[in-house]
């Protein structure tokens, strides 16, 4: 039996409650294994009954996810996870809806559904596994593949620029965007719990490694030697300081960000930009999302977390308001409303 606390939150679930009997079929060493463990850790902490959680996915390696989570799950078709999840959420707003997708699924074939789910602020949590490649179809470039990358379908290297997922989300009016790394499970767990607490659409980009087709694509960010210098942790209210020596920081210079070193050229901690995830204006969040090596570290953590009405709440409110004030309570009432006449 599930126990609940005073807030009616389910409290005594464990990871084992969410482990499925299906054999996990991802390649050994795939970043997906780590993310699966994260969600199996996160779900017991949602405070929800197992039955009130629904995992929805599209197609691709990441989209196998629902089969490995012992909740309600819908593994759908390529690119449509956001659209399916929208229906699930609107049909039953009480459900905690988690969407799992990849860079191909979400930013190529499903790009339209993705940006519109973000724009509407549907109350769902989306994990976008970004390995910058199509894995399941065996190694074609995706909209997130860097220019010049040689893949099965770009033997001379790609000649198009990739999407930056954070910019896409914020540009689409997104209210919550965070970025994490597959193997940094503690950090990713915290991000997922932050997403859960956000009312509205939360998008988490997970920098995920595909051992087979894009191995090491995030190495310049996540490698042991470079990660401290190439990742800046975004924590609300704290200065954006990073580096092995914790002496580098981001400073707003005019309208752009720059990397500065504390203690050089008279720079002190006071000059460093303090992260404000609640800022409505997208400017700095957009710049943080945009940052890429080698000139900049990559922003990790919750970059944007702004409150706004959710679509599902708005729909529920309108339905409650309209049904309270209307004299038409049934379809019979409706059929008999307006101009009618009797034949005797």
């Amino acid at each position: 039996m599930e126990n609940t606390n005073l807030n009616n939150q389910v409290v005594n679930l464990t990871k084992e409650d969410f482990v499925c009997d299906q054999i996990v079929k991802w390649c050994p060493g795939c970043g997906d294994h780590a993310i699966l463990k994260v969600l199996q850790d996160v779900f017991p902490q949602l405070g929800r009954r197992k039955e009130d959680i629904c995992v929805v996915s599209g197609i691709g390696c990441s989209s196998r996810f629902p089969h490995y989570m012992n909740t309600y799950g819908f593994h759908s078709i390529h690119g449509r996870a956001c659209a399916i999840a929208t229906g699930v959420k609107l049909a039953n707003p009480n459900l905690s809806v988690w969407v799992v997708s990849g860079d191909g699924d979400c930013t190529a074939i499903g790009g339209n559904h993705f940006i519109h789910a973000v724009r509407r602020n549907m109350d769902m949590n989306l994990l976008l596994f970004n390995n910058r490649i199509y894995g399941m179809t065996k190694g074609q470039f995706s909209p997130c593949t860097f220019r010049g990358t040689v893949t099965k379908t770009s033997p001379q290297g790609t000649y198009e620029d990739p999407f930056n997922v954070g910019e896409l989300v914020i540009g689409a009016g997104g209210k919550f965007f965070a970025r994490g790394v597959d193997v940094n499970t503690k950090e990713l767990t915290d991000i997922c719990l932050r997403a859960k607490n956000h009312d509205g659409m939360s998008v988490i980009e997970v920098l995920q490694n595909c051992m087979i087709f894009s191995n090491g694509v995030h190495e310049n960010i996540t490698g042991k030697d470079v990660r401290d210098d190439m990742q800046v942790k975004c924590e609300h209210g704290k200065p954006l300081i990073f580096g092995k020596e914790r002496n580098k920081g981001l400073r707003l210079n005019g309208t752009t960000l720059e990397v500065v070193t504390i203690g050089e050229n008279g720079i002190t901690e006071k000059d460093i930009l303090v992260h404000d995830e609640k800022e409505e204006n997208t400017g700095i969040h957009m710049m943080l999302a945009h940052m890429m090596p080698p000139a900049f570290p990559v922003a990790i953590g919750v970059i944007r977390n702004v409150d706004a009405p959710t679509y599902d709440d708005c729909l529920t409110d309108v339905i409650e308001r309209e049904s309270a004030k209307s004299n038409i309570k049934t379809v019979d009432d409706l059929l008999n409303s307006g101009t009618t006449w009797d034949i005797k």
Partner: protein
Amino acid sequence: MANRSKVVELEHVVIRFAGDSGDGMQLTGNLFSDSTALAGNDFATFPDYPGEIRPPQGTVSGVSGFQVHFGHKPVHTTGDLCDVLVAMNPASIKANMRWLKPGTTIIFDVDSMNDKALEKAGYTADPTQDDTLSQYKVVKAPITSMTLEALKDFGWDRKAMLKSKNMFALGIVMYLFNRDITMLNGYFNTKFKNKPEIIKANQTVVAAGYSYADTMEIFANTYRIEPANLAKGKYRDITGNVATAWGLMAAAERSGRQIFCGSYPITPATDILAELVKYKNLKVKAFQAEDEIAGICSSLGASFAGCLAVTTTSGPGLSLKSEALGLAVMTELPLVVVDVQRGGPSTGLPTKSEQSDLMQAIYGRNGDAPLIVLAARSSADCFYSAYEAAKLAMEHMTPVILLTEGALGNGSEILRIPRVADLPAIVPPIAKANDPDYQPYKRDEETLARQWALPGTEGLRHRISGLEKANGSGNLSLDPKNHQLMTELREEKVQRVANYIPEQEIVGDPNADLLVVSWGGTYGVVLSVVEKMLEEGKSVAHAHFRHIMPLPKNTAKVLSGHKKILVCENNNGQFVNYLREKMPDFKYEQYNKIQGLPFLTAELENKFNDLLK
């Protein structure tokens, strides 16, 4: 007001109101149908809007029409050739020449005639002066000037006064059909509530039109259509698209499921979505999606979560929904897809009606992906067809495509108002919480439907997928024999629906020499012709199919015993080819009209008589 002309009784009449887009012809037509209802006639209406939103004034492409077919006998169609045409300008005559027949009365606003208007309409000479209209009875009425005269004491400017000229025309028509003009007062009082001056102006102009027709003796005689012999009850006028929306809502209420409609605007289906979004008061969840695919996918998600899920579209949209329809087949979830057909392929003829999505509905998916296909036969029947589509989808756990047509969706008919409690019960196979025997793909022995286990229910957590699953457990399965079994089960499940639908009916002698077969919106016109020929003693019968996939169990019996079978449809032969495949023991003749126009009674009658020779 008394009517002094000689009165002639008629069985039924088709009248078409035509004018420039701004002339208020839709309102005039609606008012006339309201008085038709009060007169106790059966009737059906059809609006004929221009394709463009703001077409050039005075041109043929700017003509807006509204047709009313009413009668003493049952009215099965919105009518084809008209008995009366009200034409507010020369372009209205030009645009409607196709719908005239020898003897048609044309009530024409002679004040609209000038060189510019003729030129805009594409006439090189005045058609009322040469022999263009010699076959018709043209009544040249000074509608504009008489309207201005009638309103001269209102102190309005000319533009405001001219807005009422449609009421003058209506007054003339009310006289022609011996209607009491006070019948219109109810409508005026509702429509222009709190605007007493407008009500008075409308009443004044209608009365002026009526008096003009009377005192000037413009008609040799007037007409009376006796009340129709309709079943007792309460009636209303309803368009097919509204009837579709309400039928689905009735099914949701009767089944205890909330309705969810994810849709994307597309002509001529948009009005269903636009209707459903009005009823938040009845807890209807309607969602305007970002595209057709999101429309069906959000609906399928809602179906998974326990709603009566619906998506509405027209041909091109159905193409876009194909992949998700396959997912609905694979996940065995209930879903109603309404396709209000228009002329195709591609963008085709968006504002014209056709029946050419039948093959797409039956077969248009990858893999062996069977589903139920139904077709509504008239505007009011959309209510019952939509209700049945929802019932079959939920009780048999399968997607259903309901085919309607642009002409049905936009046209209207009278509906005898049913009580929702009198409609057939709908009992979806919802799985019980903590059922120890629950398995996602365990099937009902009779229907082969799996159970509907709703997220949120304790003890029923499960995963579904577009991947093939093991029968019973629902686990992913690549087992070759299981795939064959599941393919056969999905087909068999749909075929067994034949056990839950009525047998195919036949009108006329079951062994008639000629059996006419139709489906969808051709019902009314085919039936009208068959009824007429039966009265003449011809050996003809009519079988109209509502259930297309699966066909009714007695279909072979219905098709047996005739010298000839003729399949009539507004496409290039889709149902006839389906019958050739499913019922290969019979020889079929076909009659196809693919002009974006309905069959005319005369052309069907000729065809039927030819085959009887």
